[in-house]
């Protein structure tokens, strides 16, 4: 029988360690690369080899953490406290009791019609094309590659 608490603590430590190692690896590569770039503007801050070798310890710890997680799941280990009801939280009883839902009202019909009109107007005025353009020609900075 596995002890739940030590397992959870070890698992937490592994997760935090993996994140810390990966963050420090990124910062290290960035600092080193920035110095290289300052000396020679044709150089890159990141190189594949450097990134892979710097990320190796963090990745290894992350894999160990994931293996632990799988073992934990198979054994059914989890923080039982998380499933217990929270006591100190407010419950809006009146609104809960008043909340019925289930019917389609006038507001919903108006919004639906407005949505369809807006989409049609968007197709005509070119704003749908904006979406397509942005989705097929990606700006590097927008996805964090810059």
């Amino acid at each position, binding site marked *: 029988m596995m002890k739940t608490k030590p397992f959870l603590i070890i698992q937490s430590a592994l997760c935090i360690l993996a994140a810390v190692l990966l963050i420090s690896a990124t910062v290290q590569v960035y600092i080193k690369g920035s110095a290289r770039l300052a000396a020679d503007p044709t150089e890159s801050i990141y190189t594949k080899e450097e990134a892979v070798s710097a990320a190796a310890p963090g990745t290894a710890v992350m894999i160990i953490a994931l293996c632990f997680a799988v073992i934990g799941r198979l054994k059914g280990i989890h923080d039982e406290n998380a499933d217990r009801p929270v006591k100190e939280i407010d419950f809006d009883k009146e609104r809960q009791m008043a*909340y019925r839902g289930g019917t389609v009202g006038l507001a919903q019909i108006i919004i639906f019609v407005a949505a*369809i009109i807006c989409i049609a107007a968007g197709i005509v005025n070119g704003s749908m094309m904006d979406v397509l*353009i*942005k989705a097929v*020609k990606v700006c590097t900075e927008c996805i964090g590659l810059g």
Partner: protein
Amino acid sequence: MENIATWWNRYGPTKRRLIQLYSALLYNAYLKGFVNGSIYTGSTKALCVPGFNCYSCPGAVGACPLGSVQAAVASSGQHIGFYMIGIILLYGLIAGRTICGFLCPLGLIQELLHKIPTPKLRKSRLTRALTYLKYVFLAVFVFAITLYYGLAKGMAVPAFCKYICPAGTVEGAMGLLSNPNNEGYFGMLGIFFTRKFIIMLIIGLACVFCYRSFCRFICPLGALYGLFSRIAIVGIKVDPLRCNGCGLCVKTCKMDVRYVGDHECIHCGECMDRCPKEAISLKAGKYTLMCPSKNNGNDSHNDSGISEGSLAARRRKIGKAAWGVLLAVLCAALVWYNVLDPSGKKKANAAEEVSSGYNEASGPKEDGANEAEKPLGDEAEGSDTFESDAPIGFEVGERLEDFSVECLDGSTFKLSENRGKVTIINLWATYCGPCVAELPYFGELLKSHKEDLSILAVHAHFTTVDVGEYVAQHGFDIPIAIDDEDERIFGIVNGSSTLPQTIVLNRKGEVIYNEVRSVTPELLEKLYEEAAK
């Protein structure tokens, strides 16, 4: 065997998890993209998927709603983004935050991370207060900053994507970087990647300890959909006749709800089985989609006199049929996007056409049979000093296929006529912030080396703005052309789906630099010096 069955019943995937996996796969049905490291460029990308799924993910076949909202905000100087207003209204009205609970791949990732067995941080008054942060993110990053850059500077800067979005980092950036075909992308990584990678790790770590941290405290899309909580057609509904107001649903919910179905509720339905009165169910209008599992075989009668047991049996039947339809849709999507889609084939053919004269398996052709392989010197004026026998291609050491294009100022740019000069070709677009930011550097370089340098900036074919007017407004004083419908110039220089890209040719017309990366004045000067040698 019995143990396995018990374990499966307890820990196996729920219907909701299956729907989450299904939608993640459907949104990313272009599996070929993961193999060849490119993104899908077909017309379905004009449609937004309801959940958070980066459109730069190699598999994405639709657009991200939040990225598209920002694109609409950024282009509000040109036209009102009616399309995105309509899409958000429609999705919000139909499903609201049920999308977060069932149809969001980022939500799925967060929930899987939370499955890692560690001590969990429970909700409290503090976490409830923190949920209002997402409205700040919505106001500042999605609207204020994006609008400021769009209106004041004429630049498309989707601030949330650029500074925060972990979906962009994990699906877009990591998805593209992890492919061996995109090794060149490492060259463009800098401060943005470093910052976003760290943010992604912190959010990921937070999700391990705190349920759906990103959804609860940061997600602007959840904030938008939350506005529809009272009117969304699909969602968790409470039967007031059954509810005894014990509050167990709210007290055991992992989200920071005040009552079931409020703007924080993601309609995951976990409260359904916890309700002692079986008062909660997931409904679409008056139709029940999911109800407490205890209720399925119950023989009690509802208001219309039909027994709950027969209703449950009918629901099971409909459920099975729905799963069949969904599976058929998924199979059709996978076949369409990976095998039949003409846009993918067109792109592959274009790439093949451009790289004629270059055989990837055996390297550059050497027989010189191809007409296009004739040295540039044959066509160009000038001495033989600048002749090149490099093969046609776009890689460093190769020579670009000749082309000519009419520029916006009416002049014609013919590549072969620039032999003897250093030539720089830049691929850009008005909707690409870094592209617009770096264009003045090319103008400065051209001014300082006017006699010895030719520059051409090629705008991507897709555009909804008047590029000529845009260029005049910004005062860019370099030759600028717009690529044709077949993206001929992008094809010749191996222009990718990511911008900006810069190609530098030496005096012989040989490529010495071809990278997707923002440039600095120092880098341009250095590249010029290298090319001019």
